[in-house]
């Protein structure tokens, strides 16, 4: 055993040193060798000599992976000899937000970064991002939508798309349980739970960190549909979470939790296990978005599924959705020109179309013809009308409130706390964070 261990260890060390020396291993070295190759080519032909002083590297803190963005980065670099983009990927959501916070707090922000709903407040309050409103592309995006990442007319992040989430459902299971049409009101939605449970299949599950979604969506349908500025009122102190959120939360709780229709199993699942269960027909419904489509189709190409949006008792629907994460330029960057150029590159129509294929999201730039080749096509109209919302984008102290909401809903499900107390806790948390 010892000899084998020695041999294996020695073998690995030799290989790693060899591959390290030749620099041909790993994707991360490809960019280097490519740009090196181009440099040599340029100097060989004697034209456009890029002296090493002009070579700039801009860093990008990214929500998207090398796999997703790589093509765009290489193309940009090919067009702009002398600029290299260093992609620093951090998995969304919480990890990305944490890393972002650390970089901000220590003054080490990258040249560019992605702005998400969770970080928007920070960026506005602390002036972390450059104002991009003068970019041409914003003339083609609805002003209200741009305001997602803006403040007072200034716009801090560029995003050409928006995502909408819905409830995936298994058509076969629905049929077998005797559900003949997609629910159009909240009560019909709850009835689906009952019918599926009677049939003997788990009706609906979330993953542990997503158990707040149904309650939140009900709030959107019930309150935001009639008062679109409800959350702003809470921010200004003209209203409270208790006032606006209690009714939908109580309805959610009584209809799904007290009745036993919603299973506590959700609290023990991670997103991956949930997806696995849905794909294998172990659960009839699950919440999800365009980002799940590729995975579902890869795991089970034969799955007969579709998606619908939840409504309240009166059939009002406000879908969960938001503008996609946007590209921002850090105010502390020394390479703002180059960053600007990259964003302009990404805002070219052909790149917007290409990007849509990567994310499967909806394009919010006017005048571009495209098709969403997924079940989410049915929501295209809702995007145009702006019929989507996400409270996290509006809330003051968003990250802290969001965490408290998640913990609170979990407590309500386990019975650790009463549902009526959850909005109260949100108010308390808001007061605490406002100090």
């Amino acid at each position, binding site marked *: *055993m*010892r000899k084998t*261990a*020695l041999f*294996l*260890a020695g073998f*690995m*060390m030799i*290989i*790693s*040193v060899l*591959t*390290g020396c030749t620099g041909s*291993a*790993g*994707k*991360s*070295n490809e960019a280097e060798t490519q740009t090196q190759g181009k440099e040599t080519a340029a100097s060989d032909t004697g034209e456009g000599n890029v002296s090493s002083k002009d070579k700039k590297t801009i*860093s990008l*803190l990214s929500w998207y*992976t*090398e*796999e997703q963005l790589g093509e765009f980065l290489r193309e940009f670099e090919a067009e702009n000899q002398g600029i290299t983009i*260093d*992609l*620093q*990927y*951090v*998995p*969304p959501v919480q*990890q990305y937000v944490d*890393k972002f916070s*650390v970089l901000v*707090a*220590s*003054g*080490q922000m*990258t040249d560019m970064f992605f702005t998400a709903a969770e970080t928007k407040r920070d960026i506005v309050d602390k002036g972390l991002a450059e104002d991009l409103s003068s970019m041409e592309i914003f003339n083609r995006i609805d002003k209200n939508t741009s305001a997602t990442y803006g403040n007072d007319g200034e716009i801090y992040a560029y995003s050409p798309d928006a995502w909408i989430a819905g409830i995936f459902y298994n058509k076969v299971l629905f049929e077998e349980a005797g559900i003949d049409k997609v629910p159009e009101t909240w009560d019909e939605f709850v009835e689906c739970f009952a019918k599926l449970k009677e049939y003997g299949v788990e009706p609906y599950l979330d993953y542990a960190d997503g158990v707040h979604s149904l309650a939140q969506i009900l709030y959107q349908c019930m309150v935001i549909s009639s008062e679109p500025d409800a959350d702003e009122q809470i921010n200004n102190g003209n209203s409270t979470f208790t006032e606006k959120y209690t009714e939908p939360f109580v309805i959610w709780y009584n209809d799904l939790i007290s009745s036993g229709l919603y299973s506590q199993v959700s609290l023990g699942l*991670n*997103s*991956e*296990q949930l*997806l*696995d269960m849905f794909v*294998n027909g172990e659960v009839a419904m699950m919440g999800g978005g365009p980002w799940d489509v590729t*995975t579902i189709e*890869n*795991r089970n190409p034969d799955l007969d599924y579709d998606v619908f949006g939840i409504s309240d008792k009166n059939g009002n629907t406000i879908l969960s959705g938001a503008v996609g994460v946007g590209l921002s330029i850090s105010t502390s960057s020394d390479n703002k020109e180059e960053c600007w150029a990259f964003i302009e590159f990404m805002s070219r129509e052909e790149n917007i179309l290409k990007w849509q294929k990567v994310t499967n999201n909806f394009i919010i730039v006017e005048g571009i013809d495209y098709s969403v080749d997924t079940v989410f096509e049915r929501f295209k109209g809702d995007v145009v009308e702006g019929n989507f919302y996400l409270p996290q984008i509006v809330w003051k102290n968003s990250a802290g409130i969001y965490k408290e909401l998640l913990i609170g809903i979990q407590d309500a499900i386990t019975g650790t706390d009463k549902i009526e107390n959850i909005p109260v806790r949100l108010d308390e948390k808001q007061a605490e964070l406002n100090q």
Partner: protein
Amino acid sequence: MQGKRRGIKSYIGEILMLGICAIFFIPFYYLIVNTFKEARAATISPMSLPIKSFTLDLYKKAFDTINFWSSFRNSLLITVISVTIIIVFGSMAAYVINRHKNKLTKFLFIYFLIGFMVPAQTTLIPLFNMMSIFKLQNSVLGMIVLYSSWCNFAIFMYQGFLGGVPRDLEEAARIDGAGLWKMFWHIVFPLLKSVTITIIIFDVMWIWNDFMMPYLFISSSSKFTLVMEVYKSVGEHASNWTVMLCTIVIVLVPITIFYLFMQKHIIAGITSGAIKG
């Protein structure tokens, strides 16, 4: 009397222990066995051997997504050099603290102990600040310097061990006129072999497995460590848990090899070092 005692009772005892060992090992068996199966097979029959559904596809996929060799090289470099520095710095400091007792060294001993009580999360941002002041962030060298500051464990262990080492040889050397440097490296250090091995084992495991520090300070993918690659794959492969299990196995292999290699020394080392401290 001795020969007779090895009767049925002890055989039962041995079988019982082996049974408990088997149960103990189940999570790892589960981990390894399922990395060779198709995802569906893994869910249906998680404990079976992958005879019918054997596939190496998952490993291929895992290798494709993680930069194994580059991150392995980074982890290796960082671990080996950091541990070497820890041994050097730590033993030297412990020697002075133990052999050259005065007010200063007494203070230093307590000074180095305080580090154990500091939970890492509490000093993250000031630490980040320090790292950037010295331009240590996002670099392999920076991580090495950072891990060297973990030398207080080594100091603690060396200090304890030195308490049981007689000074005769050093006295003789001093009479012969040997300077501090020579005395320490040629005479004392060779005596510290067993505790050095213990420190190496612990520090290698801690540093190799460490996730928090590289996560905070390394952002370029070319400088990722092996454990970071697993973490990254968790985000990317939220859709493919068996591939994720593969990355876990891949990450565990080097440290397991090291462990098997050093196994015999672990207990021997603890004997000489920890208790006396």
